[in-house]
């Protein structure tokens, strides 16, 4: 079996938001819709303070609450673990947005552009009416992954088959791969590092694993 997952090495991430911008480009999302973004967290009190950069987005959960609540079956989970939205079925009820404990879903009801009313040439060219009034979120760049698999590439290794945020990450903090493959990059990273998953207590089985310390410590 294949189970796509991501690791985010918190020791590496610098919060530069290059993944955010790369995602905005790759997925042509409207202003403010960030499938991938990096949070800037401050932990502790002066002078014992830490600042932690935390990449977040859809966790492609094992038990996605968004899928469970979806009244239309627009949200589904593929056999390889990716949680998908069929924009042609979704009615935009917003229920999945509320069900997601990772705040990963967005709904945009009217065309919006970087420079307010006016679409730039690239925005006009890429405008996709299907995404209005429906839920949208990170797809793990499924089009790249599927293209790669169809062309004999390895997602997470070959850039053409890898999510844009991972390709763009300057610090190599983000890694994508098959959790079920013992030789995959993500599996190896998880073997070497201690990790946690966000809000794991909610039973969602999220598939972004946060690395926070090496195992040898």
């Amino acid at each position: 079996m294949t189970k796509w997952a991501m690791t985010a090495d918190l020791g590496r991430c610098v919060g530069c938001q290059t993944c955010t911008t790369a995602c905005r480009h790759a997925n042509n999302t409207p202003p403010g819709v960030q499938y991938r973004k990096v949070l800037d967290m401050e932990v502790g009190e002066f002078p014992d303070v830490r600042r932690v950069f935390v990449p977040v987005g859809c966790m492609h959960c094992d038990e996605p609450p968004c899928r469970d609540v979806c009244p239309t079956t627009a949200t589904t989970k593929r056999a390889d673990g990716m949680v998908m939205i069929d924009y042609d079925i979704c009615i935009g009820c917003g229920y999945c947005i509320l069900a997601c404990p990772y705040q990963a879903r967005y709904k945009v009801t009217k065309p919006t552009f970087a420079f307010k009313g006016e679409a730039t040439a690239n925005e006009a060219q890429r405008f996709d009416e299907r995404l209005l009034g429906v839920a949208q979120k990170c797809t793990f760049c499924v089009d790249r992954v599927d293209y790669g698999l169809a062309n004999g590439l390895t997602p997470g290794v070959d850039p053409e088959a890898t999510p844009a945020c991972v390709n763009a990450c300057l610090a190599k903090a983000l890694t994508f791969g098959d959790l079920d493959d013992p030789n995959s990059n993500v599996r190896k990273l998880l073997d070497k590092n201690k990790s946690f998953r966000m809000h794991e207590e909610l039973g969602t089985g999220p598939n972004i694993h946060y690395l926070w310390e090496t195992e040898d410590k």
Partner: protein
Amino acid sequence: MSEQEEAQPQMRHLGLAPWLQTAWDLRAAGNFIGGGSGTGLLILTSAAAYYGIYSRVLLLAGLALVGLGLFSVFLEIGRPLRAMNVLFGGKRSWMTREAMVAGVLFPLGAAALVYPDLVKVVWIPAAAYLYCQARILEATKGIPTWRSPLILPLILSTGIAEGAGAFLLLGPLVLEAGIPEWGGAVLISALAARVFVWMFYRRRMVDGGAPVAAAAVLIAFSGPFTIGGNVMPIVFLVLAGLQPDMAVAALAAAGLIAMLGGWALKITIVTKAAHNQGFAIDHSPARGSGESGVGFKPGWREVPKDKT
């Protein structure tokens, strides 16, 4: 810009702690209000049939409330022309199940207008509909104040309380024999249950079950709701018992207040104390050969323990 983005605080970096959801507003709350009060009324109307009381007006009123609720939420969806897709998700979604139950409730209710005997079974889809509504909230994992298991008895008890309230309010106008005696008893029981569940629910939310901001809303709401929405109607019910000459008016007042109290509860839970989960980390990372540190859960009372 997305709706969420527009609702983000002006200081953009503050979007770490849970913030008030914006996907569902008063229109969605309207569904829970109409659905709760409507099904509650239908359940009481159905129960009354066993006592030989039959009122088309109450039946219609109950169905109308449910229908208004559904229409209200219809106004909120992004693609209304595809509204019937809502029926596809019966395998998992309580929203689909609610819609399916509505598909039984309305024909049955309509038929009961013609065949009064059918009123006796209207309570079944009505109760199912009310239960679906409770489960809709409970399944919303992203909103801590909704996903609490206590939301189930709370929504059910307030539905009955609202329905009983509507029954006491409308009964004198439409029932020739007036309100049956058990009407007041049902309301007082439902109110007692509601306030009892509320106390537990509120405490659990305030004790770390909900983000601080959501808990604060519940704390602020609790006094007025307990006194105004629950104690006051009980007082009116007691007054009705003590002063028979004022009974009709007192019962109606008790019913009205009990119903409005339920509506306020839903508006509060659905649109005001509806903060999302926010973000959290279990550990601060080690940077290079530095030390790792504790986790962080902004906007919550509890801080997850460092598991090291």
